[in-house]
């Protein structure tokens, strides 16, 4: 990344001359706040995340229906889940929805974010309208779309050439499509916001230099904007992946995991087991598996992308 920028930088070379700010050495001498600063957050996190997580881990080795006292059952919950076809299917569905989310939302949000970072006429007004889905709760969004997609009185009834008999929630492929679409509709604005901020932060000089070199708009986009958005892209993708793995309300309200178990993703299956089947042990096991999986996947993304090293994409630019 850094080297790419440096090598694409000959035009900026002449500016090297006078060193205006000897910034680097003094930065290291600034004192960091002590651990005490992190204490309130740490206590809060421990109390509301770590402690419950440990409880869930313990509960996943027990059987409990909420009425009698919990009983230890060893690995029973886990071995039953390992053989449960619905559980296995739910993992694939979760991954599928997550991948769909990343693949659809990323290009859309980049394009929209870069556009929204500009200074065109009406941009502010259009952006505001576009950000509205972000302000609605996932529940409201899901209720809204379930009504809009009613086969007899909703959009499908007006566009039968596209939707056929409109049985969107009655078949697996279309039900998954609806879930992916609704998440996209709701969360693209949020990721657009990330990209908008990042695109605004790209130094103007890079574009000015590129213009002098005769690069057109598309070359500027692919050779300056996109590489400069790298860190924003990683941030946004991690949020999308973790968000995708834990999607819940959309499924609860739009499909209830149906038809049958065709859209039962892991987080919904956990709810189904724990709060509808009153089998808190199995529910806890699914929850714990989800926490572990999300953590591992996030770590992998962070590692592979080099996000952990937090290299600046603007090194060497004024």
């Amino acid at each position: 990344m850094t080297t790419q920028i440096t090598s694409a930088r000959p035009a900026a070379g002449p500016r090297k001359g006078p060193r205006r700010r000897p910034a680097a050495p003094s930065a290291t001498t600034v004192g960091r706040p002590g651990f005490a600063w992190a204490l309130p957050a740490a206590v809060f996190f421990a109390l509301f995340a770590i402690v419950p997580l440990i409880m869930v881990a313990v509960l996943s080795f027990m059987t409990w229906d909420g009425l009698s006292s919990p009983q230890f059952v060893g690995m029973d919950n886990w071995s039953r889940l390992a053989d449960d076809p619905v559980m296995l299917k739910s993992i694939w569905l979760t991954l599928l929805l997550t991948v769909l989310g990343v693949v659809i939302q990323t290009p859309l949000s980049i394009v929209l974010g870069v556009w929204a970072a500009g200074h065109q006429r009406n941009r502010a007004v259009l952006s505001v309208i576009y950000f509205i889905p972000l302000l609605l709760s996932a529940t409201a969004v899901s209720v809204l779309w379930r009504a809009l997609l009613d086969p007899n009185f909703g959009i499908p009834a007006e566009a039968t050439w596209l939707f056929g008999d409109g049985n969107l929630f009655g078949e697996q492929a279309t039900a998954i499509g609806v879930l992916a679409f609704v998440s996209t509709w709701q969360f693209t604005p949020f990721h657009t916001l990330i990209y908008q901020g990042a695109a605004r932060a790209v130094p103007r000089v890079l574009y000015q230099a590129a213009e002098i070199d005769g690069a057109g708009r598309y070359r500027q986009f692919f050779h300056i904007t996109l590489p400069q958005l790298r860190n924003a892209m990683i941030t946004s993708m991690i949020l999308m992946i973790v968000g995708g793995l834990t999607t819940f309300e959309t499924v609860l309200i739009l499909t209830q995991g149906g038809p049958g178990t065709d859209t039962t993703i892991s987080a919904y299956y956990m709810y189904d087991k724990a709060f509808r089947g009153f089998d808190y042990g199995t529910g806890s096991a699914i929850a714990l598996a989800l926490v572990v999986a999300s953590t591992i996947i996030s770590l992998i993304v962070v590692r592979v992308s080099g996000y952990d090293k937090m290299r600046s994409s603007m090194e060497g630019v004024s």
Partner: protein
Amino acid sequence: MKTRARLPRLVATGATLALALSLSACGDGNGGASGDDGKIHVLVYGDATNKVEKKIVDTFNKTSDVKVVLDTIPGADYQQKLQTIINTPQAPDVFFNWGGGSIKPFVKADLLLPLDDFIKKNPELENKFLPSVFNNAVVDGKPYGIPMRGTQPVLLFHNKKVLKDAGVQPPKTWDELLDAVGKLKDKGVTPIALGGGDVWPTQMWFQYLYDRIAGPGLFEKAVGGDKSAWESADSKKALGMIRDLVDSGAFGKNYDSVKYTNGGSVQLVAAGKAGFELMGSWYYSQQLTDHPEFAETGLGYTAFPAVEGGKGDAANVAGNTNNYYSVMKKTKHPEAVAEFLKLMYSDDFVKSQLDIGNLTTTTNTDGFIDGSATPEYSRFQYDLVADAPSFQLSWDQAYPQKASSDMHKAIQQFFNGQLDADGFIKAMQALPTE
């Protein structure tokens, strides 16, 4: 971001509850219901009927030394929250439930007070109610609940104009229904509206067909733990008839995308795009809210048709029999509770319920129907329920609550063809019965 925060929060809530509950389970035995504030706590499902419950509580508190406090839990989460508090010191003295399977686990956990002592002292607590309704809160031969709201039998509703245009009479028998389905299809309307997205409306077709073909015995056996009932010839016959009905296009093709709860199927019938809909008696007030003009002039209703050659009595009904008050064993004021339950068959109670459209199931209801808001409709329902040899409680409420999710999956999958009859039978046999 929001979804990201959701899982930890769910986990946290679950685990905190787990903590609280396991702690209280350990420190069991100090059993003062809702602390020791000397009051009776009554927990009810929060909705529009609460105003009647408040009124009854006020009436009771005027004369009683032991006061009643009404606690409400808003709608959908009722059962989940009840199950998490019922074995803790925060548990109420008296609580709302659906009878049947909804209280069976509590009886098994020895949490509920059998009401036979109350009834011995005051037989009216039993004989003031219609037996078919009262019996749905009897578990292992002992009564555990007193009916406290209205009955909601499932009826076959229709759009009068649509039926007339197709030259169809409201069907009295299964063959007439099949005939009507054919004629309505020829007219280009969906014969029967179905909110399959909610699944429980689909379940109503299973309840009635099983009852008509096998009689109430088959389901009674199955829910009692004899799983062979699902494999019987009658069971297979009922499934075959459901399959034929679905395959004939009676419900159209997109029923799984339609919901009752968001008004989809309701509008289908009101707009004349469908002929029939099988739904609980609350359907009338739903139509009255959504489409008042249609409800008053265009909506017809009949009992579910008879099935020729079936073992079940055609006068049997299915649906939600009523809601019940059950009493916790650890209540400190059983005498006051017994006094409070007496009010559930008082004239004042019956009148107040009828005024808001709930059809009570007390024997004195009869005398008040003519003065109610919808005398004709109330009379039809009351006679139906009073004359019914058996009232089949909705399947998902007759089974323990924890079975309902898997039951719904099986019902939806059989209906849309993802499961065949054998697959459905296996799925039903796998349901927990206690």
